[in-house]
């Protein structure tokens, strides 16, 4: 038990107020936009193979987002969320982790899942909510999840994954696992009560969890300066007694370095870390959003100049690990693959009507069996009104 209630600090006899800005928070930058490394920068563990793996994931992510936003515009899928400009935060994060580490994401973190090797077919099946979707067509597009790849299924309510990540990591610790949990969220979600609950509990209960805030400047239309007035999200980490770092989120080497060090620290000390990655959501919040209503083209152009994928490409070229011709070929190949996968996935049937009642409980209870039977009889009576399932009901 702690008998010393008051933290140590100087005793003063004139009233002295401080604010979050009294703590100066440094920002880690390793890679410059032209692909050169800042002098004296500490590089993350990276070699040609891992760098190219990360770059391929970034490229895949960029093309996937372009294609799927277009597919939504064409009415082929109902909804999509691109991560344009923020790809380094998720791909870099996954690249710095081990496969056994749990990823608990918010929703714009498909980059981490792509890096882990979630197949293009699985992605498409989710986006088209067809019968091969691992989530059985129950959630809107981009709510991916994979037990095999330790990527927790996305939940729309904001911030709920934050205290869950603390609990998940606490369980990993108690069972002596060589694994941590990373928890992604935006600066908007950091206003939710669950953020405060999750961080405080992680600090108090010493959970090996890495909180990764993607500060992308906007929560739908609300800019960060209308979301908080403190010194970003990082200052809150300090308040909770959590090891804290702020990084350039468009710098994949800074992301990898911070996450690698955070993982080491979390595992060794069995304590949480928070990383605030400063980035910018270059695209719309989702396909249902239009940023022209709340920000200028000039502002967007300024951030386009900090493209994280181009920055990494310049780095690879400078290392002689990659060239323009390879780059062009990769993007062309990805466009073809993704377009072909769209054409396959959109033809696959929707899930069967029975999937309405499974997984509500571990077993289908009697009242749900009854409701399903009644529903099937009704569909049989009006088959034209329910074309998705009518033909498949026995």
């Amino acid at each position, binding site marked *: 038990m702690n008998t010393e209630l008051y933290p140590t600090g100087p005793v003063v006899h004139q009233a002295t107020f401080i604010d979050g800005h009294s703590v100066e928070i440094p920002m880690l930058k390793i890679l410059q936009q032209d692909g050169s490394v800042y002098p004296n920068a500490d590089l993350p563990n990276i070699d040609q193979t891992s760098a190219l793996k990360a770059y391929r994931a970034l490229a895949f992510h960029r093309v996937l987002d372009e294609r799927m936003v277009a597919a939504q515009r064409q009415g082929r899928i109902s909804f999509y969320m691109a991560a344009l400009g923020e790809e380094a935060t998720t791909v870099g994060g996954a690249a710095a982790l081990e496969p056994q580490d749990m990823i608990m994401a918010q929703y714009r973190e498909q980059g981490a899942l792509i890096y882990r090797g979630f197949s293009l077919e699985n992605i498409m099946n989710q986006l088209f909510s067809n019968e091969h979707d691992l989530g059985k067509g*129950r959630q809107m597009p981009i709510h991916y999840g994979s037990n095999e790849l330790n990527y927790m299924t996305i939940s729309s309510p904001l911030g709920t994954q934050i205290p869950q990540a603390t609990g998940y990591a606490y369980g990993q610790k108690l069972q002596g696992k060589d694994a941590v949990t990373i928890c992604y969220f935006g600066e908007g979600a950091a206003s939710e009560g669950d953020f405060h609950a999750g961080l405080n509990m992680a600090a108090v209960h010493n959970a090996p969890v890495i909180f990764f805030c993607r500060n992308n400047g906007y929560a739908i239309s609300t800019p960060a300066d209308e979301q908080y007035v403190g010194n970003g999200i990082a200052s809150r980490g300090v308040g909770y007694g959590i090891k804290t770092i702020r990084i350039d989120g468009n710098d994949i080497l800074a992301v990898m370095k911070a996450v690698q060090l955070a993982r080491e620290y979390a595992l060794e000390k069995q304590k949480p870390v928070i990383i605030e990655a400063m980035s910018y959501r270059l695209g719309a919040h989702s396909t249902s959003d239009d940023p022209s209503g709340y920000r200028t083209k000039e502002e967007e152009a300024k951030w386009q100049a900090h493209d994280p994928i181009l920055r990494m490409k310049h780095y690879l070229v400078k290392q002689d690990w990659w060239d323009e011709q390879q780059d062009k070929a990769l993007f062309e190949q990805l466009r073809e693959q993704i377009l072909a996968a769209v054409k396959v996935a959109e033809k696959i049937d929707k899930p069967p009507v029975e999937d309405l009642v499974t997984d509500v409980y571990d077993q289908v209870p009697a009242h749900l069996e009854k409701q399903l039977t009644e529903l099937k009889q009704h569909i049989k009576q009006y088959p034209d009104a329910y074309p998705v399932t009518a033909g498949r009901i026995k």
Partner: protein
Amino acid sequence: MAKMNLLQAINNALDIAMAENDSALCFGEDVGHFGGVFRATSGLQEKFGKDRCFNTPLTEQGIIGFANGLAAQGSTPIAEIQFADYIFPAFDQIVNESAKFRYRSGNEFDVGKLTIRTPYGGGIAGGLYHSQSPEAYFSHTPGLKLVVPRNPYQAKGLLLASIRDDNPVIFFEPKRLYRASSGEVPEEDYQLPLGKAEVVQTGSDITLLAWGAQMEIIEKAASMAANDGISCEIIDLRTILPWDIETVAQSVVKTGRLLISHEAPLTSGFAGEIAATIQQECFLHLESPIARICGLDTPYPLALEKEYAPDHLKVYQAIKQSIEF
């Protein structure tokens, strides 16, 4: 067998669950060394260590969020919310997360190992915020199981079943009976079935249905009615979600009358759901309207608790009205 009160039976069940399963954890506000404000977790920290039985910060949404994460990870969290009146900050974590975890992931992940224990109900001079019975809010959420025991024997068997059940369970403990109810409880391990009501007393004239602390109220009313020559069949629902329609319907087909009683307010209380289902199942067998004897549609009072409560006299009166209808 040993004589235990309801708290001791719960403590005994938690002890068994933690001893058999290293990944079972008990936590919540004041749950650690102090053993909880009602002492349901007494001695567990000393026995199983601070890593497995501990105090949490004062954050109900945090407690259940943390518990959801633990359950998804494969641990067996048994989280305590100190009073059911304080469960609402965790409403989102329970309703949108615990209840939907398996469904939304297509069974890739689940939190079936989660159990939430929380004391509910009035009769302890607790006023608005230490007396509520919020079960109906949760009954509207597919994916949850809701369990309420009426005595120590039921508490131990139902709690062990809840902890081992592969679905998230909210276990509502009738705090008025924590020390007031005692009885013989087997010291060994046993379970009672979830989703199954129990016919506590057979009868032929009217079916009385309740759960938890309200059971002793309807039992008292039934014995008053017996003096008038009225034969009551008494059923303890035990599990509110999913509830045992079959047992209740069979009874009502036999007796032709149904009275449901709960402490929670009348409007949108779970009795309304039962009444709607039973009139559907038993319409032609009913000889009088289904009676609901519940709390008033007011916040839970303090000074006028006795007037508010659906006591044995109100139940007795309603039994007579139903018979004479």
